[in-house]
Each structure stands twice: as structure tokens, then as C-alpha cells.
């Protein structure tokens, strides 16, 4: 069920991000979502891409990349949707390391991506609470 996210490590310097994703942007691989965590020295770029294997190839050997399993939850694109999900996790004492959300071009509203330690347990909990999870295929399409 889990969604695979592509993360890359870049220096926090002028032009590094565009340099890193140049190959991807010149291909037909689509970056569906992107979020950055940064320090003064570096940035960690997390992406949901339409074709993960090809994206990794296109980054080349010189870009440090890694695939992580994350949880993606579908939600309505309206106020309060994210809050409900976070409350459910908080009550179950599941710690979210980072999160980002993006709207979908599909009929339903948006996705929220959650980075947690135990993907399986988190997915189980959210399903039980009635939230709808996105599959890897779905979120890339």
C-alpha cells in the first residue's frame, strides 16, 4: 500500500536544485509533488514522481538519492481535512517526522504525505479510522 518517495541530497547553494532535476525536467517524467527540508549547508528534496526508477536514472550517479516508504492519504480539498488526519495520528501517539500536501488533478481533492517510522501501523490505523489511502500507482498517475 505504501507510497514510494524519492529523496535527494543537495548543497544549499545557488543553482543546485535546478542542476539536480535538469535531467528529469527534460524527460517525460513528471514531478507530482516536491518538498524541501534544509539547513544552511544542504537541502533534502523529497519528491513524488510519475516514474521513480526512470527519475533515479535521470538524476545520474552524481546525485545522492534514496527511496523511502511514506503514507499518502486522500483528503477533500477543503478546510479541516488535514486536521482530522493529524488528530487521529496524535491520539494514537504516532510521531510524524515531516509532512507535505498537494492537490490532485483527479476528481477528489488532495493528498497528504506523511513520513512516519512504522508505515504499516500508520496505514492500518488510518484505514480503521475511515481515511482513504492512496496507492503507489494511483499517486503517480
Amino acid at each position, binding site marked *: 500500500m505504501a507510497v514510494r518517495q524519492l529523496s535527494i541530497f543537495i*548543497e544549499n547553494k545557488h543553482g543546485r536544485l535546478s542542476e539536480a532535476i535538469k535531467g528529469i525536467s527534460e524527460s517525460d517524467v513528471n514531478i507530482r509533488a516536491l518538498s524541501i527540508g534544509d539547513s544552511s549547508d544542504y537541502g533534502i528534496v523529497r519528491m513524488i514522481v510519475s516514474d521513480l526508477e526512470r527519475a533515479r536514472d535521470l538524476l545520474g550517479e552524481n546525485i545522492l538519492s534514496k527511496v523511502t516508504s511514506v503514507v499518502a492519504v486522500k483528503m477533500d480539498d477543503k478546510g479541516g481535512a488535514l486536521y482530522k488526519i493529524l488528530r487521529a495520528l496524535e491520539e494514537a501517539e504516532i510521531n510524524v517526522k515531516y509532512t507535505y500536501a498537494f492537490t490532485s488533478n483527479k476528481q477528489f481533492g488532495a493528498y497528504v504525505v506523511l513520513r512516519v517510522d512504522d508505515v504499516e501501523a500508520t496505514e492500518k490505523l488510518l484505514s480503521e479510522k475511515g481515511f482513504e489511502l492512496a496507492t503507489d500507482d494511483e499517486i503517480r498517475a
Partner: protein
Amino acid sequence: MPQYFQPEIETASRDEIIRIQNEKIVKQVRHVYDNVAYYRDLMDKKGVKPEDIKGIEDIHKLPFLKKDDLRECYPYGLLATDLKDCVRIHSTSGTTGKRVVAFYTHHDIDLWEECCARAIVAAGGSNEDVVQVCYGYGLFTGGSGLDGGSHKLGCLTLPMSSGNTDRQIQFMMDLNATILCCTPSYAAFIAESLKERGYKPEDNKLKAGIFGAEPWTEEMRQQIEEGLGIKAYDIYGLTETSGPGVAFECSEQTGMHINEDHFYAEIIDPDTGEVLPEGEKGELVFTALDKEAFPLLRYRTRDICVLTRGKCSCGRTHVKMCKPMGRSDDMLIIRGVNVFPSQIETVLLNEGYSPNYMIYVDRKNNTDTLDIDVELSPERFSDNIADMQEMEKKLAAAMRTMLGIGPKIHLVPPKTIQRSEGKAVRVVDNRKLH
């Protein structure tokens, strides 16, 4: 006001100094040969017997000691007296986990303190002075050395140790300190702090400062002298030879008089080991002529230096050394602490990082900064920034344990630090000290 602490020896004729050195070296070589197996082996290997050393002119026959020998001999290998006769140790910041431990008998402490007392008098001090010692106290020799010298001379001594600038300033002003002893960078920092608090240079009672333990420039001297309204004097020494006071500046401020009755200095070619004539630039080598517990013979300091024996207007006759002009090895002196790039490499390897790194040293607001670029390995890359920061913190802590000072760690992508084919350039020192 006295001009010298020990006038008869500080102004002794050249012949008299040589006579003292001749007498002491013969005795010292015998003492070391009889009591230090490690050095006896070195002498035997070189085919030199104690009786071959008939005077100071024979010193070139003796084998050198290097830092590596000292590490190998840790802790007791170079000890030349019974431990029961030793009263103290001091230690360097150490490398690859092994430090250099120097031992002192009562006699050794005495002669060291005498040397420091000479330095204080040369800076214009007498028993009427209030000496504020803000070198670190402890294993580091700075605090104890100047403290001892100050006692010997009969000054009121303020044993402040380093840090806590507010308190330094409070005592300096309230107790009318007249002589300041610390690293030059700390002196500059104190000057700045005084200014920030609205004090003018003439508001303090300081007249002189004795600054050492790290390289500094003439520009920095001028800055400190103006900032504190004092005369700033250099002092030289190393734990291996006792501590500060091996050499010190006089009123002329053109080089440091070496206490030749206790320490014999040579300048050698660092590549061949050949002794160079006076006035030539080379590596400074010291022989402790009358230390008992830790008497190093021909110890290679790795400091590049020139010795001059001209007449000095202060009246002292002892040979002068210039400010060290660099190092013949890759040692860095950062905030007064000796740092070898190899130590940094050891920590990286221990902690599972690639041995590709760059060291950047700079001096900002008169304080040395140490930054290390470290390549992140693919296995260590985490998409979670908190994990990465935890990693940097852990590495910085391991560095601090090894080096004695904390660096700032910068993680960089793999394979981004330039590989070199010959000798890798790993250090960029932007301080421009030499």
C-alpha cells in the same frame, strides 16, 4: 624597578653561557643514557656513547626526538627519574588518542617558574604588579607557568583561568591588574569587550601583556597594544620542553630571548637534519639542559624559525628566536590548541565517514574558527533532517573529544571534495599569520 630577574645569568658573557652549557650537557646526557632506555637505544643505534659528548659543540652527534617518539613512549617511556620524585604532570591536547604527558620534579617546576619570572620582569614587571593570568589552568601549561612565574617574582597573582569575560573585566578593573597573561586572541577579545562596555584604553591600569600559545602577527600586536593601552610581549614554549617561558620578548620587541642556560636551541634543515648556521631559517630543535624528570634531548619542535645572536638593547645576552614562521609538519594551532589533520581523519574513519574532507581555518573577530566539510556517504543519507542534524552533532562531539576544540561540521554530497593525485590539500588556513 628591576631590569632582570636573574641579572648574572641573563646578562652573562657568551663564554660564561657556553661554560654552563658544556657542564650541563655532559651531565644531562649521562642522566638520560642511564635512565631512559628508549633514548639509550637511539644513542646505541647511532653509535654514540655519553663519553662522546664532551661539551655543547658535540650535541649534533646525538639522535633527534620527534613527536612520534613521544607518543610511542606514552606515558612513562621517557621518564628519567623515579615517579616518587615527580610532583606534577602537564599534557598536550594529544593526537590519535595518545597524548604527550610531561613530568616535573620540584627542580623542574622551579626552573620553569624562574623562566616565566624572567619573562614577567622583561615585560616591565616587579613584585609591585598585579598579574592577571587568564591562560587555562589544568593540564595546559599556560596557566600554571605564568602563575608560577608571577609567584616567584612576588606579584599579586589573579588566577583567573580562561573564559568568563565579564568576570575577567570585573577583576581587572576592581583589583587594578597591571599585567595581563593570555592568548593574543583572548587579549584582543578582552580589548573589544572593554570597548563595548564603554571603557577607554586609559581606564584600565594595565601596562603590559604577555601573550603566547598561538601564532600572532605584528598587526595583531598593534591592535592589542592600542585596544588595551599596553605593551604586548610574545612568549614561547611547549609542553615537551616545560611550557611557556622557554623564550620571551624584552623591551626591544624584536624576537624572544631563549633561556639558554636551561634550553639549548639549534636550527636544522628539516629534510636532512643537518645543523644550519646562525641566521638561517630552519626547524627549531631544543635540548633541555637541566630538567630532571622529562629531559628531552634534541627535540624537533617542527616550528620554522631563525636564531640571531646580535647585541640586544635590553642588555640580555641570550640568543633570540623570531616568531615561528610556520611549521615543517601540518600541525595547526587553533585557539591555542594543537590540531593535526590526521586527528580529524581518525575521527571520521572511527565514525564511519569517508576520509575525504576539507578543513577551513579562519580568524573572525579575533577568534579562530574551524570548519570541516565532510562527505556524506549514501548509507548515511536520511530524508529526515532531524536524523541528519543528529549525525552532525554526534560527529562534532567526537571531534571535540579528540581535538579539544569543537569544529563546525558541514555535510556535503559524496564525491564533491576534490580528489588529488599527489599530496592531498586538506587544509585551507585563511588566517594569514605568517
